């Protein structure tokens, strides 16, 4: 079953078209990545999914609910971490998490707040005002606010932008833990190494989805440069990105003794995505 179904979603601001007929399916329990450059429409799409933005046209269903019509029911089941931390700087981490937790019927809120602060590794600074925190800590508080009510579906808008690699790795461990517990995660990112960690990705370009597949599937659309060192000479060729293409390319050599070396240089996800975008732009 799909947690998200989007059909021909369009959002226009006057003459500017932020989303131009987006079609999207996100399976339940998946870690889904929305990949695209800045200004592609990622935040606009997330806002339409969480019911913070009224689409100009199209149909949106999240967990079987309409984000605008069934707003109250949906908001009990989703968590949202915006791109900017969106916190009360004068208040402590605990106060922030407790405030957003109070919006939901979270049982034993006080205990749950402590649990989630522990989960996001903030227990030591729980009572300090947020304005004393580093950027990474503020992101963790923001994540804790999105998780406090145990949502079935999480929307994370560039959650690891400007976050150091160590914290990013911790975030992804947490995301995987949440997915294992049954939550569906919708993560927007422009970082390709992060996109590789998703179960499925869609590439958004100028408000349109131009490709949807697993990261591996997208990679296989790229090329692989094969270099065979043979009899003191190098034979270079470009083959497909699929593992079977490599096997096919190597078969004629049978790895005979005169094959001294084999070099394989596959396209990165970034270059494949850029090439897909390039083709789209003609």
């Amino acid at each position, binding site marked *: 079953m799909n947690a998200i179904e989007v059909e021909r979603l369009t959002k226009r601001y006057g003459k500017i078209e932020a989303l131009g007929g987006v079609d999207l399916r996100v399976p339940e329990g998946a870690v889904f990545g929305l990949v695209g450059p800045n200004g592609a429409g990622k935040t606009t799409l997330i*806002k339409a999914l*969480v*019911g*913070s*933005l*009224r689409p100009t046209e199209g149909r949106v269903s999240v967990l079987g609910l309409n984000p*605008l019509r069934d*707003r*109250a029911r949906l*908001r*009990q089941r*989703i968590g*949202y971490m*915006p791109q*900017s*931390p*969106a*916190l*009360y*700087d*004068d*208040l402590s981490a605990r*106060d922030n998490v407790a*405030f*957003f937790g*109070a*919006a*939901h019927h979270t049982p034993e809120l006080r205990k749950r707040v402590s649990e989630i602060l522990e989960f996001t590794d903030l227990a030591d600074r729980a009572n300090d*005002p947020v304005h004393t925190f580093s950027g990474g800590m503020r992101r963790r508080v923001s994540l804790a*606010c999105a998780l406090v009510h145990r949502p079935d579906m999480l929307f994370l808008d560039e959650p690891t932008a400007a976050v150091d690699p160590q914290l990013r790795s911790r975030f992804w461990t947490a995301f995987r833990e949440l997915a294992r517990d049954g939550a569906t995660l919708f993560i927007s990112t422009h970082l390709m190494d992060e996109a590789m960690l998703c179960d499925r990705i869609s590439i958004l370009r100028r408000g349109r989805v131009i490709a949807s597949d697993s990261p591996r599937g997208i990679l296989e659309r790229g090329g692989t440069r094969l270099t065979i060192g043979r009899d003191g000479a190098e034979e270079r060729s470009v083959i497909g990105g699929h593992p079977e293409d490599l096997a096919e390319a190597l078969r004629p050599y049978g790895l005979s003794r005169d094959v001294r070396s084999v070099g394989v240089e596959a396209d990165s996800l970034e270059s494949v995505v850029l090439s897909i975008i390039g083709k789209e732009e003609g």
Partner: protein
Amino acid sequence: MRHTFAIARRVVKQLLRNPRFLALSVAAPLVIVYLLKLFFDTMPEGFDVARYAVPVAAFLVHFLAFILCAIALVQERTAGTMERMFINGFRRVEVIGGYVLGFLGLATFQAVAALAEAIWLFELDYDGETLITLFVVVWLLAVASVMLGIFVSTFARREAQVFPFIPLITIPSVFLSGLLVDTDELPRWAEWLGQALPLFWANDVIQEVIEANWIFEDVWASFAVLAGYGVALLLLASLTLRETE
């Protein structure tokens, strides 16, 4: 109501975590009332201080309650916490209710402090009933000002966009609400414009009750308009505060 109280608690907590802001917002009207005293001391003998002292204190409370509430709400919008509140399930009526409750404490404190100082500094001698009525009217004005702040905040996306509203609301209040000159000396259109401002009705009550031998029948209508002003602004704010873009 649970959500409204959660927002009110959070607003109060934020105010308490800002002792400098809190002290300034109470100290500012006190300092201005004192400066007013220095100014009035230069006036010739027989100048009617009572005519101006309490209305000016009321104006200061009105101005500060309006501006502080408007800016606090616009800050919510710029920081993204307003959107986050809505996405978390808070509704606009609850947000407005929470802000009214949260700022009510500050507005009450401002009303008591400014009024007490004006009465003490200008050595105004009023009976208990008059003092209570003066407090209630200044407090009601403060509540209406909080509502006005909420309403105005719905038209501003950034703090800077609140500033054009300050002269737009406060200058007509000073000149057209009877604070400096009696409104019946103004052209008819200006008198009507003055009547659209909450300070006009508050000043109307104040001018009545500072005279000896006033009776409640003389002021209840202005009281009702002032209270109605607050309710109307609350309704307008709840219609204009948008949950979705």
